[in-house]
């Protein structure tokens, strides 16, 4: 299948973000080049079309590449259900938000709310992610409900906040409130985590390889070898996520359970 390639021409020096929910393989699958160019966008309060900001090549494909610095382009791949979307550069806020299938790759950094409330599929960020990756929008009961978010760099605050299912893997560090109020799923951090990790969590697992300060509402239980983690890590390695050698082998972790201020059935695992 041919690829649809979009090249971002910029917004004429404006710092106003471009709302681009229509940049999704679902929208391109059955449209030719001219039809894709007419898909609606919003720049501030001005309505526009894709052709105003992007040069489009190809059509009728769910294999999409978008090139350029898209740090101020919001909502790329929002609610996508399938296909492949490659962002060759940075991505703005809400990339992959509410996606349910397919795969998004961002070669640079992604801004806040990456993969927010997604229910399936894969969002692979080769650079850093902003705040609330895999999180919940204000007023929502749940954040991410399925799928996988890979961040090869660092991530901001509230990663996996209100998470309901799914897997978030951050190869670097995360900031405060990782996994706060999560009710299941897994947040896996190979670096360090900021304060109040897991605050208010009901269920679910947070793994942090550089042990954070544990909230007093978590109780230390025991050292054990979590085989489910070895299964997750082996699956990641087979998939091609760049894990350091040996990380996938079963090894002992110290388990804290909490948050006892809430249901208390969650866990934070740190290497023993």
């Amino acid at each position, binding site marked *: 299948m041919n690829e649809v390639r979009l090249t971002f021409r910029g917004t004429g020096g404006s710092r106003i973000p471009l709302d681009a929910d229509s940049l999704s393989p679902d929208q391109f699958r059955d449209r030719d080049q001219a039809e894709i160019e007419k898909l609606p966008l919003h720049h501030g309060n001005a309505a526009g079309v894709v052709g105003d900001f992007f040069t489009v090549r190809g059509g009728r494909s769910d294999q999409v590449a978008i090139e350029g610095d898209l740090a101020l382009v919001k909502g790329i791949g929002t609610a996508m259900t399938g296909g492949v979307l490659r962002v060759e550069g940075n991505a703005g806020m809400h990339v992959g938000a509410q996606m349910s299938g397919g*795969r998004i790759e961002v070669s640079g950094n992604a801004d806040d709310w990456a993969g927010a409330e997604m229910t*399936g599929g894969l969002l692979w960020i080769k650079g850093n992610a902003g705040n609330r990756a895999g999180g919940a929008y204000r007023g929502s009961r749940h954040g991410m409900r399925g799928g*996988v978010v890979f961040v090869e760099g660092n991530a901001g605050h509230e990663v996996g906040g209100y998470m309901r299912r799914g*897997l978030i893997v951050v190869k670097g560090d995360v900031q405060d409130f990782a996994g706060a109020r999560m009710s299941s799923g897994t947040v896996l951090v190979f670096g360090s985590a900021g304060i109040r990790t897991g605050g208010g969590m009901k269920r679910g*697992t947070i793994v942090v390889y550089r042990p954070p300060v544990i909230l007093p509402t978590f109780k230390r239980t025991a050292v054990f070898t*979590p085989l*489910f983690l070895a*299964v997750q890590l082996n699956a990641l390695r087979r998939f091609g996520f760049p894990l350091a050698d040996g990380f996938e082998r*079963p090894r002992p972790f110290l388990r804290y359970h909490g948050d006892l201020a809430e249901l208390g059935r969650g866990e934070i695992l740190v290497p023993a």
Partner: protein
Amino acid sequence: MELNGVPIEDTYAEAFPAVAARLLITAETPEWARTAAASFTGFATSVIGCGCEAAIEDGAPAGGTPDGRPGVHVLIFAMGKKGLADQVVRRVGQSVLTCATTACYDALEGGDAWIKVGGKLRFFGDGFQSSKRIEAALDPAGRARRLWRIPVMDGEFLVDHRFGVATAIAGGNFLILGASPESALAAAASAVVAMRRVPGIILPFPGGLVRSGSKVGSAYKFLKASTNTPYCPTIRGRVESALPEGTGAVYEIVIDGLTAPAIAAAMREGIRAACRPGVLKITAGNYGGRLGKHHFRLREILES
């Protein structure tokens, strides 16, 4: 037809449709994995008497298992999905869950149906069990997998929520007629070694072979199957014997497999290995084609 001077009777093995599951048991060491697998497959020689037929299929190197530990594949066969589910849940619960350091995964590719295993055993966790999902995005087949974590006294027992079930075949067989018990046993043992290299099959009887082959019916009203009188050397002369002059012992090798080609391949390897000095004939067991829909013709298998 002869192979290495051993006559191959122009007959066929009659086998039956069955259902099967394939499990992978991993543990801290290959020895513990094999211990659990041996317990799981214990007393599982015949569907009639044991409710299922099961055996170790092969060892799995640590690099190829979901948790990166050494493991053992086992195959288990039953006549129906309900009976299979009952046997798998009982055996995983009593023989794998109980065994030090083990975990148990579904290892069947391309099953037709599912049976709930971890989904039933989880209640042993008394409310402290939890589950983990391996997301569909990480699975080559695009299928999410749910694993149950059941707290036990050495940590956690990890088991798949459900296991795949495949339509399979049970009861492939051939018989080795030897001039003496020693020559028949040596030939059968050689066949077993060769057959165990074939993937997708098991030999459910002790040591891979059976001395008490059976026929349908008996002299007693309450007994539906009895010793295979035409192949028992010690009553030759008292019954209509199928044994050539000079036969000292007969061993049967029964094969259950996930596919017909796998059973045929195993029979081919086994018969070739069994055709050695001291063997008088190779034949196979059937019921005139009335009971089983799978027929494995010995000569066709050897010529293919």
